[in-house]
């Protein structure tokens, strides 16, 4: 019940954010695997940190600055994104991502408490630019599987992968 309230709260919170060029966010009640109960503070922190990671992801891919990823991404996710940024920079292109909506659901909380898996049905616009020249724009609707692991003061994205719906 409390998670439903949390979900509703998140929707409200982020729906108001949409007015300020923020994506709309809908958090669905968890459909959990795993024996560990998920506290509402943990769920809220994971959602908050994930949405913040999108902002850093957008900025890093747009500005080709891998260092911007550091506070929010770790492990495979950080390595792959940083590698893509390096390739973009080498090709002289950059990518502007604008996420429009997220539908989030937590699906796994590992019994040791050291990983949380989330599904994000996301819609975003992807615009590839060669310096200031727009090469292409695409509206993308896909599903991300996200694995987050705790760092010292926040959850960081460790797996960030678009998968077939």
């Amino acid at each position, binding site marked *: 019940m409390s998670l439903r309230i949390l979900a509703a709260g998140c929707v409200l919170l982020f729906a108001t954010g949409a007015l300020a060029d923020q994506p709309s966010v809908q958090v669905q009640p968890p459909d959990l*695997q*795993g*024996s560990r109960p998920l506290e509402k503070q943990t769920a809220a922190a994971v959602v908050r940190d994930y949405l913040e990671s999108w902002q850093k*992801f957008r900025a890093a*891919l747009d500005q080709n600055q891998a260092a911007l990823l550091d506070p929010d991404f770790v492990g*495979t996710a950080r*390595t*792959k*994104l940083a*590698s*893509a940024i390096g*390739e*973009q920079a080498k*090709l002289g*292109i950059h*990518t502007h*991502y604008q996420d429009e909506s997220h539908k989030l659901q937590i*699906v*796994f909380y*590992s*019994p*040791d408490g*050291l*990983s949380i*898996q989330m*599904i994000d049905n996301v819609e975003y616009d*992807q615009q*590839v630019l*060669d310096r200031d020249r727009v*090469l*292409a*724009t*695409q509206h*993308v609707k*896909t599903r991300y*599987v996200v*694995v987050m692991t705790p760092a010292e003061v926040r959850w960081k994205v460790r*797996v*960030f*992968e*678009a*998968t*077939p719906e």
Partner: protein
Amino acid sequence: MTLPQTVTAGSAFSVPTSGSGPAVLYIVGPDQALRRDVQLGNPVSIAAGDLYNAGEYLAIIVAGSSSSSGELEVTPAPHPDTLSFLATPSRVPVGLHNGINGAVYVFDAYHNLIVTPMPVSFELSGSSGPSQARTITTSHGVAWTEIDSASKQGSAKFIAQAGGIATTRVIDEVPGDPCGLTISAQPDGAKLRVQTALVRDCSGNPIPDGTIVTFTENYNGAQTTADVPIKKDIAQIDMPAYSGATISVASGVVAGNEIRWGGGR
């Protein structure tokens, strides 16, 4: 440009193109960005291993000032290559129900999470007693289980296996709290040597050396205490020898027996 709807990570594929003249093909996604010079009208070949990160990509052909684009989805390779096996705890008391848990994330050779369901087998085998095994099918690329710890102490192998790939963790199954803690005393010069019997847990496992045993001697309103580590299965200490003193023992929250020196037990 005619794009395949999906390609498998790391596989070779080609993109047929139409028209004529030179152009540039970009394949851009969050995890990878590729560029190929192409001659329009000829197919563009992407070699095996060139596009290996799963995800949504935007493919763009740029010829002069015009461009066309399309979506391309790269899916993980179907065969597992790496298992991220989170097994905890590294030490677990013996005889604990669901005391050991493991979660496995299954990745392909390019560190893409394989989200198609597949069976993962877990097996816990200790130095003594039967092994415990179970098979779990992954959901969104992850499978997990919980297993009881054995009743005998020792190192247990916790193995996760999927698609022929196995990963092993070692779990130390350690004794529980001391059980039936008893002491005895003998005079040792002017002192009293107090020592425990062999310190065991309730399953008969010896309590590891270094575990603290607290001796307390009360005599005539004065108290003498010492926190003594177990060495070679027993703990011992020299205490003042007062006739009529009571000496008790405890370890953590477990209390042992009490003896009276000079006044019988």
